[in-house]
């Protein structure tokens, strides 16, 4: 079997298993699976910016939060359904992404400085939302929970199975979109920019425009996750949704799974979520349930993975499976640390 055929078979099997899951899984497993899909989706969205175009964002919670608050606010105050609210959320997110991207790329900010700029915008917004009384402020915004046995897809009210399938559809859509993007003109331009921005520019690529496109697509995709988050959890707190730890959760999956790959974000989200739950179970069995023990284990595993699998799990696994995956990892490392490629050529 050729590598492409094998990938196809793998995808088909995975899709089948995921479609059948709600019929066999307990409600606990289903909730874990929904969480995995959520992080697979946000990871895929983040990967467009970092994995494809090489722009490190540490503030993706901004887009999740803005879209969540936009759709939940419209629903709460005016009864506007989430699918209509999504457009507003997406518009706000794309505008925010475009604003950040415009400011950063126009002023020549990249690398660590760009990452810190994204953190700054997310934190600024988090504190700002604490002071917006119309959206509940620090006390939170709550969506009324209705009967969970009827399915109302239009208002995104329904059973856990419905939420699972909605998220699965998002993940499938994101996968297809990313697969298409990677093979499109934009995808090749992005990869050229990621590998060497100056060389890409010398070849006549308008790097500003294509980097902007990456940020805007990534923000638009993430806005879907925000709407889902608002209506799945039915409560929003600025402290939680905009917090930097949520941004970190989003990026852990693709980094562990394999940056710049299509399967990496999905595999990484699954591994990390199962790992976190596995550690919880293990500690419960050992009777070591002090606060913090779980996260220490989690940190140790992260450390080990990043030390020994620098390109993530998927490229190594794909080689093992004979999927002929050439890891297209970003190689923006420096030959010499004095050769600073990070900032401000204004």
């Amino acid at each position, binding site marked *: 079997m050729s590598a492409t055929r094998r990938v196809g078979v793998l995808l088909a099997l995975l899709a089948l298993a995921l479609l059948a899951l709600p019929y066999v899984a307990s409600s606990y497993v289903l909730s874990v699976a929904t969480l995995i899909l959520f992080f697979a989706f946000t990871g895929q969205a983040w990967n467009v910016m*970092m994995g494809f175009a090489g722009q*490190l964002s*540490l503030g993706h919670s901004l887009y999740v939060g803005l879209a969540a608050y936009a759709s939940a606010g419209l629903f709460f105050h005016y009864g506007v359904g989430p699918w209509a609210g999504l457009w507003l959320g997406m518009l706000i997110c794309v505008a925010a992404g475009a604003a950040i991207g415009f*400011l950063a790329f126009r*002023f*020549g*900010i990249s*690398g*660590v*400085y760009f*990452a*810190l*700029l994204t*953190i*700054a*915008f997310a*934190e*600024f917004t988090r*504190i*700002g939302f*604490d*002071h917006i009384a119309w959206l509940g402020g*620090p006390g939170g915004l709550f969506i009324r929970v209705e009967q969970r046995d009827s399915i109302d897809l239009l208002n995104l009210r329904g059973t856990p199975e419905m939420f699972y399938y909605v998220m699965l559809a998002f993940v499938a859509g994101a996968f297809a979109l990313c697969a298409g993007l990677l093979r499109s003109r934009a995808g090749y331009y992005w990869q050229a920019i990621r590998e060497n921005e100056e060389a890409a520019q010398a070849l006549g690529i308008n790097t500003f425009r294509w980097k902007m496109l990456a940020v805007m697509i990534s923000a638009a995709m993430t806005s879907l996750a925000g709407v889902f988050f608002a209506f799945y959890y039915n409560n929003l707190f600025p402290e939680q949704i905009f917090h*930097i*730890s949520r941004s*970190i959760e989003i*990026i*852990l999956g693709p*980094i562990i799974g394999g940056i710049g790959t299509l399967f990496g974000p999905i595999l990484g989200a699954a591994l990390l979520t199962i790992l976190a739950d596995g550690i919880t179970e293990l500690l419960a069995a050992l009777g070591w349930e*002090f*606060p*913090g*023990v*779980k*996260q*220490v284990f*989690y*940190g*140790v595993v*992260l*450390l080990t993975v*990043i*030390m020994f699998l*620098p390109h993530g799990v998927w490229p190594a696994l794909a080689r093992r499976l004979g999927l002929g995956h050439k890891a297209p990892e*970003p*190689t*923006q*490392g*420096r*030959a*010499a*640390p*004095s*050769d*600073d490629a*990070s*900032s*401000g*050529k*204004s």
Partner: protein
Amino acid sequence: MSWDLVVNVSIAGVLTGLVYGLMALGLSVIFGVVRVVNFAHGEMMTIAMYAAVVLFATFRLDPFLAVLPVAAAFFVLGYALQSGLINPFITRPEHSQFMLLLAVAIIMVNGLLVAFGPGARNVIVDYQLESWALGPLLFDKARAYAAGMAIATSALLFAFFRFTLTGKAIRACADNYLGAKVVGLNVKRYYALTFGLGSACVAVAGCMMILLVDVTPTLGPAYTLLAFVIVIVGGLGSMGGALLGGVLIGLSEALAGLFITPSAKSMFSFALLILVLLFRPQGLLGRKI
């Protein structure tokens, strides 16, 4: 609002800001030489604060005396961290370094949580409640001592880099990696030395900070962000810039708490950060890049 209240709040803000500055100085020195952003910086700060708490609780050791053992221990810790974990990562991409230090930070925060629980800890010494009055102006004694210590430590570090041979060697590594290697400097050892020195700065800042605020394990990430804001505002890699940034942020936090609302105080720090990044990305005192 009375005039002397504003001035007194400003004085307290500037004094606290100097301690912030010392913390950020550690980050700035590490970045300036090793070119790795220490995402576990605030977590190291909280560990130093807990170390001071423990030394005070067991030996009644005043935080000003605790500075010596804690700084020495942190120097060793930082040296080991750089030579054991970070040196293999210096040629890896930025997101890889970020993940490494993030994992270290997660382990540190939650290690503290396991060891000390989520409750707040502090030290209580008699001079914390005393102050000098200069007409209508009040100088909080603990704050003034802490600021003095921050200035003294910074001066010491500055002199070390300026006048000692080792300091010159470290600056050579920062200026030109390849050149430093060519003239026979063991660059990785100097990197480890630098990380040790940066960690010692954090240790001193932590011992001082515990005189001013209570510590909880979750304070770490907040201090990391604070240190980032300060060094970017002052100029990443610039030593004077770190202190200036610290004073500016300390002042803006104090005044925002007074005039607007304490919960919005870090919003102004982040707004300042965004403005500086956009209009002077090298920071106020940073060299033109």
